[in-house]
C-alpha cells in the first residue's frame, strides 16, 4: 500500500478551481518530484495533504496518508498527524525559524507537542535530529540562535524539525530555491541520505527540472492545477509524452540565438577597485574596523560583448554593481565608461550615468505600485539634460514598450495588472528608454519561471543585436550565464578568481572554487539519454 495516495483531488478556493483531478502516490523510501511553474498548484497539493489550506478552500477527492483519510479527519486528529506522520520543509529558511528561540528549543518543540516526554529527553532527541542533519554538537550546540547560522545551516535546522519524530512522509516545498548552488547540492544530498536511512517518503516540490532529474524516483509534472505527465523519472525524460513536458525541458536548457560581433573596443574598464564598508564599533573608542566587500577587482567589457559575473551570495557582486552604476564611491581604483570616470570629484558623473542602466531581479519590487507604467518607464529621462516632452515623450515610451513586446497602450495601466514576466519586460523597457550602451542585468531572470525565462533571454539576445547593447550579466545561476554570455568571471569573497571565455571556463575550470560551483550545479540529462 502506498504511503501517500492522492486520488482525483479537486480544490476550489472561493469558488475558483485551483486543483483539477490531481492523482499521485508516494511509496515508502521513494522520492517523488512534483514539478511545475508558479500557479501550477504544486504547493496547494502539498497543503491539501497537510490540510493547511487558506479560508474558503473546498477539497473533494481522496487523500490517504498511512491509512488515514485526511479530508474527513477532524482538526485535533490532523494536529496529531502533522509533524508526527508528515513533516514539512519550506522554501525560505530565513523566515521558517523563530529568531528569538534557540535552535534546540525549536527542534524540541515538535517532540514536546507530540510526545509525553520530559524536556531533557526532548532536548536529547533534538540533539540527535540535528546530528542527523549534519550539524555537529561541537560547532552547533542547542543554544545557538538562528541569526548565528547561514542560510544552508538554517535549512538544516528546519529539516531537523521536520524529521525529529521520524515521520513517514516529508514534504519539501522548494527547499533549495533560496540557496546558493553549492549549498543546494549539500541540502539535496542530505535529503537523499535521510530518505535512504529512514525509508521515509519524500515529496519534493520544485520548479527546477534539473534538481529532480538525478534525485527523484518518480516525477509528476503539473500545469494549471492538473497533472500532465507522471511516471518513473527515466521514462518521463525518455518519452516526454506531453508537449508541455517537452516545452519545459527545452525551456530549461534554452539557448538563445546570438550574433557574433567584433569586440575590440573596451566600453567599461574596472581597475583595481576596492570597496570598504565601515563596521559598527564594538567599543566606544575602538578603532574603526572595515569590511572589504570588493578587493582589487579589475576587468574590461568590450562594446557589444556580454560578460557574465558568477558568485554566491555575499561575494560582493551587488556591491560591485552599485559601484559601477556610480551609486556609491569606491575607496581605491577607478571605473571608466568609454574612458570617462563614473565618479568625479565625489559626485556621480551624469554624462556617464546616462549611458548605462540596470534591470533588477525582483519583478514585483522593482516598480512603485502607485505609478502607471508610462511614467515608470520614462523615469530614466531624468538623467537627460533635455528630456523629451509631450508627443516626443509618448512616442519614446511607446517605442520602448513595443521593443520589449508590449503594447504602447500598456502605459496607461498600473504595474499590478502585469505578470512577473511582463514586469521584467517593463523593467527592460525602462532600461532601454534612454538608449544606454551598457545594461547591467542583476539576477534579471532568476525569479522567473523557466518558460518565461527562455522568452526574456531571447528578448535580451535580440535587443543586443538590434541596439548594439553591452551586457554585464550577474547571476548565481550557472546554466543561465552559460547560455547568454561570451565571457564569464567567477567572484569569491570580493575577488575575481577566474575569468575566460564562457565555454572554456565551464568545460575546463581552473580554479578550485569554479570547479566546486560547476560540480554543484544540477544538470538536466541529455534528451533521451536519461
Amino acid at each position, binding site marked *: 500500500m502506498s504511503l501517500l495516495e492522492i486520488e482525483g483531488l479537486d480544490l476550489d478556493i472561493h469558488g475558483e478551481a485551483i486543483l483539477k483531478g490531481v492523482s499521485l502516490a508516494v511509496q515508502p523510501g521513494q522520492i517523488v518530484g512534483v514539478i511545475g511553474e508558479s500557479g501550477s498548484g504544486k504547493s496547494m497539493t502539498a497543503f491539501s495533504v497537510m490540510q493547511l489550506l487558506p479560508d474558503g478552500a473546498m477539497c473533494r477527492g481522496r487523500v490517504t496518508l498511512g491509512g488515514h483519510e485526511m479530508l474527513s479527519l477532524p482538526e485535533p486528529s490532523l494536529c496529531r498527524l502533522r509533524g508526527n506522520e508528515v513533516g514539512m520543509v519550506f522554501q525560505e529558511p530565513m523566515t521558517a525559524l523563530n529568531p528569538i528561540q534557540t535552535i534546540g528549543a525549536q527542534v524540541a518543540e515538535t517532540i514536546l507537542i507530540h510526545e509525553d516526554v520530559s524536556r531533557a529527553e526532548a532536548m536529547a532527541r533534538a540533539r540527535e535530529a540535528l546530528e542527523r542533519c549534519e550539524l555537529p554538537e561541537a560547532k552547533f550546540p542547542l543554544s545557538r540562535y538562528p541569526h548565528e547560522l547561514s542560510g544552508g545551516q538554517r535549512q538544516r535546522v528546519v529539516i531537523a524539525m521536520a524529521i525529529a519524530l521520524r515521520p513517514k512522509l516529508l514534504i519539501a516545498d522548494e527547499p533549495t530555491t533560496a540557496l546558493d548552488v553549492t549549498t543546494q547540492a549539500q541540502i539535496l544530498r542530505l535529503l537523499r541520505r535521510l530518505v535512504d536511512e529512514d525509508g521515509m517518503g519524500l515529496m519534493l516540490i520544485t520548479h527546477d527540472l534539473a534538481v529532480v532529474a538525478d534525485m527523484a524516483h518518480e516525477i509528476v509534472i503539473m500545469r494549471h492545477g492538473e497533472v500532465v505527465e507522471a511516471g518513473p523519472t527515466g521514462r518521463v525524460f525518455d518519452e516526454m509524452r506531453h508537449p508541455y513536458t517537452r516545452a519545459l525541458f527545452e525551456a530549461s536548457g534554452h539557448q538563445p540565438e546570438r550574433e557574433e560581433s567584433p569586440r575590440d573596443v573596451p566600453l567599461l574598464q574596472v581597475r583595481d577597485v576596492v570597496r570598504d564598508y565601515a563596521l559598527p564599533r564594538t567599543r566606544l573608542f575602538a578603532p574603526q574596523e572595515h569590511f572589504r566587500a570588493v578587493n582589487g577587482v579589475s576587468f574590461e567589457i568590450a562594446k557589444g560583448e556580454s560578460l557574465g559575473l558568477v558568485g554566491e551570495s555575499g561575494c560582493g557582486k551587488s556591491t560591485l554593481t552599485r559601484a559601477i552604476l556610480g*551609486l556609491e564611491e569606491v575607496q581605491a581604483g577607478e571605473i571608466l565608461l568609454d574612458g570617462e570616470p563614473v565618479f568625479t570629484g565625489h559626485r556621480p558623473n551624469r554624462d556617464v550615468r546616462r549611458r548605462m542602466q*540596470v534591470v533588477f531581479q525582483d519583478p514585483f519590487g522593482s516598480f*512603485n505600485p502607485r505609478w502607471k507604467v508610462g511614467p515608470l518607464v520614462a523615469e530614466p529621462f*531624468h538623467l537627460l539634460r533635455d528630456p523629451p516632452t509631450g508627443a516626443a515623450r509618448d512616442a519614446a515610451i511607446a517605442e520602448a514598450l513595443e521593443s520589449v513586446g508590449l503594447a504602447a497602450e500598456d502605459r496607461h495601466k498600473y504595474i499590478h495588472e502585469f505578470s512577473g514576466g511582463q514586469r521584467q519586460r517593463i523593467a527592460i523597457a525602462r532600461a532601454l528608454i534612454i538608449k544606454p550602451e551598457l545594461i547591467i542585468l542583476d539576477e534579471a531572470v532568476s525569479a522567473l519561471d523557466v518558460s518565461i525565462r527562455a522568452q526574456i533571454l531571447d528578448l535580451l539576445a535580440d535587443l543586443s543585436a538590434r541596439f548594439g547593447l553591452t551586457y554585464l550579466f550577474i547571476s548565481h545561476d550557472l546554466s543561465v550565464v552559460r547560455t547568454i554570455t561570451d565571457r564569464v568571471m567567477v567572484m569569491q569573497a570580493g575577488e575575481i578568481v577566474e575569468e575566460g571565455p564562457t565555454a572554456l571556463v565551464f568545460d575546463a575550470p581552473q580554479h578550485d572554487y569554479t570547479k566546486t560551483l560547476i560540480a554543484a550545479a544540477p544538470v538536466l540529462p541529455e534528451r533521451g539519454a536519461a
Partner: protein
Amino acid sequence: MTETGFLGAALRSRSLVLGAVLTAVFVLAAVVSFLWVPHDVTAMDIPNRMKGPEGAHPLGTDHFGRDILSMIMVGARTSIAVAVVAVGIGMVLGVPLGLAAAARKGSLLDEVIMRGNDLVFAFPSLLIAIMITAVFGASALNAIIAIGIFNIPVFARLTRGAALSLWTRDYVMAARVAGKGATRISFEHILPNVTNLLIVQGTIQFSLGILAEAALSYVGLGAQPPLPSWGRMLADSQTMISIAPHMAIFPGLAILLTVLGLNLMGDGLRDLFDPKIRRVGR
C-alpha cells in the same frame, strides 16, 4: 485594487462603517450648527435651568438654562477645528522631518531630528499644552498649537520607520540609477507609499486631539467662554452632578462617541489598506 473593489471591501468592514457613521453624525452636527441651532447657545434662561431632557430641550438645559443640544453642536465645531488643525500641524511638519531623517539615515541630520522628537515625546503632552497656555494665555488657538506640537514626533517617527523599509526597494534603486536625488525620491516614491499609514494614524491622532482639547478646556486652558466646548461643559457640570446628571452625561457621551467613531474608523482603514487582512474579509 479597483475602485469598486475598494468601496465594496470598505462597506463590508463593520468597524469602518460604524466608525464612519458615528464620525459623520458629529461632523454633520458641526456643519448644521453654522446654519441653525435649536436655541441660541448664549441665551440664558434662568427659570428653566438644569431641566432634564424634554420637548423644547431634547438634551435638557445647563445651570444657566442654555440648551445642551445646541451647545454640543457648536462644541463639535470647536473640537473638530482644534483636532483638524492640530493633526495638520503634526503632518505638515512631522512627515517631511521623517522623510528627511529616513533619506539621510544614520547621518547627523537623522540624529538631530530623531533626538529632537524624543525630547518632545519625553514631555507629557498635556504638560506642554499647559506650559504654552500658561505663557501665552488660554485660548482655542494656543490649545491647537500645543496639541499640534505633540503630533509632530508621532508623524515623524511613523514616516521614518515606514520610509526606511521603502528605501531598500528596487524601485528606489531604479530611481537612483535614473539620477534622482533624495528629495525627489522622497516625494515621488516614498511619500505616496506611506500615505495609507498616515491616513490611519491621522484618524487616531484626530481622536486624541479631540480628547486633548476636551482635557485642556476641562482645566480651563482651551476654548474660552462664551464659546461652547465639550470639555468645559463637563467641567461646569461637575458640581451639579448629583442634581443634574444629564449635564455631564451628554457632553461626555459626545466625546466618547466621537473618539470611538474615529478609532473604529482608523482600525477599519488599517485593515482595509492591509491586503493580508482584507483578503480574509471581515
